[in-house]
């Protein structure tokens, strides 16, 4: 299926290639470079590029293009999903997935790619199995390796691929048995000029960090499972049990994993935690524009709105902005016309505002497009949908684990049109 993989950095250099079948010349990437040139923005490169003999399927992540070479029919999502899985694995192994990290660990990268695909078909993509096969590099291990000459490759042969529970290895041992679950919700919203909500949705995930000895069997139940409209699970979750009782029952993988992602039905009214008052205007004939922005909390269930960051792409005609923030700092990049304002925490008593003027190109006509304002924020200790975990039970092991649940709400794609 996947013939070859090329990694290309932002400046257009191929810095890694791997072939699973016969070698494909890297000149095939020329077609990709053509498409890259045609696309105005890096994210506008079409994910699938046909060439006379091959098809190139690429994903862009962390400013690196992962270009897979395909020779015959294969579901494109299959390849795309796999490439993302590769990136996730690299991130898992090296902490970051940058060109430098890949170059530094090129041997581990190669070993990983070798294990993940066999003849172009995915073989072992589960991070737990991979970690048994190839130990991730850590500082300590690097030091030890250089002294003792030992290696990253696991000494024993992994058994994970063979077990009934392919996502968990056997013989896990911890002194402190802990299980943490983070319920993170993101609000995607489009707010129109007048402040009314055009569309708003809540997407949530339950991320887990489970460090438990042996083969624990966990069940997690919610107070209000009806809220969940559409869910997708980690393969470890027993689907039948969920269908019947709305209980998550699973043998967890070891370490970090995403247990569940869900969507809260759009029929429910979504609470919008912040509001924006804006007044952005350009006068005909003058080279000045006015910019006023005030943020305020709204429906936050008494929690503080933190880490607020406002960004906006101003019209091309704007030369500079001379603004005055009541709190936080702002920057304006005159080249990309990107205005960003790091607000911090919203104090309901003293609402943060950003006011000032913009200078326009002299002689240019009044821009008729309005900038959109993107907002990011975080609210701790709150799941905005109201989802609550009821209880977590463990079966199959004798010890008492430490259990922790954390809630958080974030802005997803939160846009205000002006």
């Amino acid at each position, binding site marked *: 299926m996947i013939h070859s993989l090329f990694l290309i950095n932002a400046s257009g250099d191929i810095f890694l290639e791997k072939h699973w079948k*016969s070698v494909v010349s*890297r*000149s095939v990437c020329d077609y990709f470079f053509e498409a890259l040139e045609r696309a105005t*923005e890096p994210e506008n490169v079409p994910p699938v590029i046909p060439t006379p003999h091959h098809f190139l399927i690429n994903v862009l992540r962390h400013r690196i293009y992962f270009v897979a070479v395909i020779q*015959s*029919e294969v579901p*494109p999502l299959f390849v795309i999903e796999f490439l993302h899985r590769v990136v996730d694995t690299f991130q898992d192994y090296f902490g970051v997935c940058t060109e430098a990290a890949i170059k530094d660990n090129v041997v581990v990268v190669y070993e990983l790619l070798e294990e993940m695909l066999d003849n172009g078909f995915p073989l072992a993509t589960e991070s737990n199995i991979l970690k048994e096969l190839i130990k991730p590099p850590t500082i300590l291990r690097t030091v030890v390796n250089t002294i003792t000459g030992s290696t990253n490759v696991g000494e024993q042969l*992994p058994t994970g691929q063979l077990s009934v529970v392919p996502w968990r290895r056997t013989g896990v041992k911890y002194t402190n048995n802990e299980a943490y679950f983070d319920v993170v919700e993101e609000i995607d919203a489009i707010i129109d000029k007048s402040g009314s909500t055009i569309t708003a949705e809540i997407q949530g995930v339950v991320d887990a960090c489970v460090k438990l000895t042996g083969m624990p069997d966990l069940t997690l139940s919610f107070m209000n499972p009806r809220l969940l409209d559409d869910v997708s699970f980690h393969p470890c979750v027993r689907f039948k049990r969920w269908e019947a009782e709305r209980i998550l029952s699973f043998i967890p993988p070891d370490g970090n994993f995403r247990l569940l992602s869900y969507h809260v039905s759009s029929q429910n009214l979504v609470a919008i935690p912040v509001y924006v008052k804006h007044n952005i205007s350009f006068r005909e004939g003058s080279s000045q524009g006015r910019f006023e922005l005030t943020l305020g909390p709204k429906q936050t269930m008494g929690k503080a709105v933190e880490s607020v960051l406002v960004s906006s792409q101003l019209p091309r005609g704007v030369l500079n902005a001379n603004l005055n923030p009541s709190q936080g700092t702002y920057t304006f990049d005159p080249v990309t016309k990107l205005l960003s304002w790091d607000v911090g925490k919203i104090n309901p008593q003293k609402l943060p505002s950003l006011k000032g003027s913009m200078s326009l190109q002299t002689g240019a006509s009044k821009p008729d497009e309005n900038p959109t304002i993107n907002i990011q924020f975080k609210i701790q200790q709150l799941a905005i949908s109201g989802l609550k975990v009821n209880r977590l039970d463990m079966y199959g092991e004798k010890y008492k684990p430490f259990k922790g649940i954390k809630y958080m709400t974030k802005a997803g794609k939160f846009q205000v049109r002006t």
Partner: protein
Amino acid sequence: MQKLLQLPVNAVNIVKSVQGVVQGQEEALSPVLTPDSSPQNWYSAVQPEELRHLRSGGMGGGGEGSEDRPGLEEGLTSVQSQPLRHDDLKEMLDSNKDSLKLEAMKRIVAMIARGKNTSDLFPAVVKNVACKNIEVKKLVYVYLVRYAEEQQDLALLSISTFQRGLKDPNQLIRASALRVLSSIRVTIIVPIMMLAIKEAASDMSPYVRKTAAHAIPKLHSLDPEQKDQLIEVIEKLLADKTTLVAGSVVMAFEEVCPDRIDLIHKNYRKLCNLLIDVEEWGQVVIINMLTRYARTQFLNPNINESLLEDSSEKAFYASDDEEDEDKKAEAAALVKRKPYVMDPDHRLLLRNTKPLLQSRNAAVVMAVAQLYFHLAPKAEVGIIAKALVRLMRSHSEVQYVVLQNVATMTIKRRGMFEPYLKSFYIRSTDPTQIKILKLEVLTNLANETNISTILREFQTYIKSMDKDFVAASIQAIGRCATNIGEVRDTCLNGLVQLLSNRDELVVAESVVVIKKLLQMQPEQHSDIIKHMAKLIDNIQVPMARASILWLIGEYCEHVPKIAPDVLRKMAKTFTNEEDIVKLQIINLAAKLYLTNSKQTKLLTQYVLNLAKYDQNYDIRDRARFIRQLIVPTDKSGALSKYAKKLFLALKPAPVLESPFKDRDHFQLGSLSHLLNAKAGGYQELPEWPESAPDPSVRNVEIPDWSKCTSRKDRKEKKLDKPFYSDSEGDSGPTESADSESDSGSGSESASASDESGSGSESEESGEETESEKEEEDEEKEKKRKKRLDKTKAKKPAEESAERCAIHTSYQINTIAPSGSIKMYELLHRITGEGLAVEYCFSRQPFSPDPNMVAVQIQFTNNTNSETKNLHIEEPRLQSGMRIREFAEIEVLAAGESVTVVMGIDFCDSTQAANFQLCTHTRKFFVSIQPPVGELMTPVFLTENDFKKEQGKLMGMNEISEKLTLGEKCVNEHVIVERVTATANLSRVPCGSDKECRFAGKTVSSGCLVLVTVTTKEGGRAQLTVNCEKMVIGTMLVKDIMQALSQ
């Protein structure tokens, strides 16, 4: 093998020197390394496509290897500087320290990753294939898989390590050995791979079986001739009940024999039930395959609805006189329409795939979605919408693919996505390609109820900064206006407002769209046309100008005053316009001339004259044509009468269609669908069958599966379904081999061998009717034919293998029936200018070195003068081979002959030993290639020892074939004679007179070679060879078969 790998230092040097020579020739010959022993026909085995890759890879290596821009100079410098660096890598690889080896391998792998050519390190690396250190080993595998194709000969050195791995008690080692073995793309090991795959397919461990399934497509792409045998293996693995295997074997099925849908029947229900536990990638492949399967086996669940639709449409359009007939047809259709009942298997598939919509893997969700779209009853398709909308939250590449598919779905089933309309609203941060796809979906979703919200949304999009997106939005508005009559005026007004936009692109796009809209009802909109006529002064975009001119020309009667004026302006600027605008000016002139010739006659003449001398021949042609048509002259043809009709015909309004209109004939989710063009290897989604095929083919008799199914049943099946019997007959010859090597292979082989021996059995059971006997005969006949076909099919492969084995400089005559020692010619009298040289394998132990084969060489001097100083020079040997020369012959008098003995260690391979034979005047290039039978020496074993040793060499090491003895092989004596003539073996005493046993060991490594010939009635026999070296075993079987069947 150990010996092979622990090459003595001089052997390494030999390898290097071979390497050096070969590389010297490389440029002249071909980028693929061809040591001269390798025959040309390897090339034919390599696909032309592959060759292309090789070439580009091989040539690219030098130039493109350098990190930066590939340049000739850099390429040169890298060639110059690399040998130095590679030398120290070689040294490190040769050292005893694992840490040094590891460091070297790491550096080599890093170079491979950067695309540098490290093929010259091959001999040094391949030695470490048996290294104890796991990481070194792994990296060597990485290297080997990358370069084996280019250095086929040297890659063979590593094979036996993997062969040993295939027998390891640890399943993971077995699996990884098979994985690497099958990844080495070397044609000569195809038979070994085939054996290994067959063996692994019946391995105890499901993980090994999975690896076997993975190996199938690899072998198929290496040698498509193995297809039939591979299909047998696929069939066997499809019956596997473990989830681990299911995904991989279906993947192999899809790649090797996607059209053999008959193999799926028996496994269909099992696959459906296993599906949820299969790993995610396997799920995708299985679901896609099952979609195709279901399309061939089940009835269209929407058949009644589609019939209803058809009939209502017919009634709508039917003209009066046809009505009666139509009614009849309709009635017939109604009669034909039976109440639809879904096949339970169809339901099973739908039910078992549904939970997978909850998968975290987008590819799985998409696969289920397309399955539902193509297979489910209309009422149930809706459930996929939610899951697809969820995928829209994912990475933009995923969004891109999902939106493409949603766009196709919304055309067919609009209602499905209507509740999720708002999820397709566009954000300013979306990439343009996503925006345009979302717009497409929104347009498809628009209907009378939601159009007002959609239009409001579109209005905000028009203010976006992204101009491509704005243009697409305007077109979307146009499409909404054409599709939904009620909003046409609103849209038109909105678009007209856009005409005063500051951005020219926006205006131009609006003009084009307005033109299309106006065509629908031009009468009411003369003021818009007037407005647009004014715009022609300002708009510069050619497409927009052309559109305006066309509009004015087409509806010149609505704007009688303005039209001539516009023509006047355009005539002024004619020469500076773009081509499409010029064409429209000519058009406008012609139309005006026909309607209002008084005012525009001169202008038209002027424009036509300008056009006559235009640079573009299209425009010149058009001008000439129009002049002939409209300007009345004496000679004007018949057509000019109709000029007005021609130009001012009523033109149908354009239909604004979605580009996704007819995409659903491609299977959704496929690459071909995305590109809207068939990609290589795409399997058409078949149309629903008219009537359902027999559903009982999917019945599986569960309790009987482990036991032998009763013969009668089997026969019945065979009778009514020839397809099946074929496939079973196919597996006949090989199955017997299986049943001996592997007792656990199951009932199939047992029953098959049962049948093959049924000749005597049927006689015993007197009750069986005659007809049945006939059937049986028929069956046998069929089987025999199959076998014949098989041998025919095999022939080319065998031949090529043989050609590999036999060097072109001499030929082996057919093996003589006598046991006498055969002489081969080394140098012919004529080519040797009077010196004739012959050699034979004397079968005597070579005393100076017991690991060498003794070759007796006879020189005959046929000249009139004496030949002096006969000796050997410059042996060029495969790595590991050694040669011990004979002492120089000082003088060979005229007419005399002399015999000497030399020793060659062939390293247990049939590769030729090449060297030069020198006299005092000349040098002759000669080569000696041993038949496989000469690579061994006899060993004396007792019957018990023989059995014990044979017990150790089961499984992969055992090769057995059935054969028919030649006419002269009447008794045991002849058999013994023939076998010993073919191979240097000794007879082992044996109690049974039906069996002949022989034993020997290979000369250089001392591996045992055990041969058993079991004779059966009717001149049939079975030949079994047990040998650790499978290459030797296979070749030996071939030779002995040939000798015995003559």
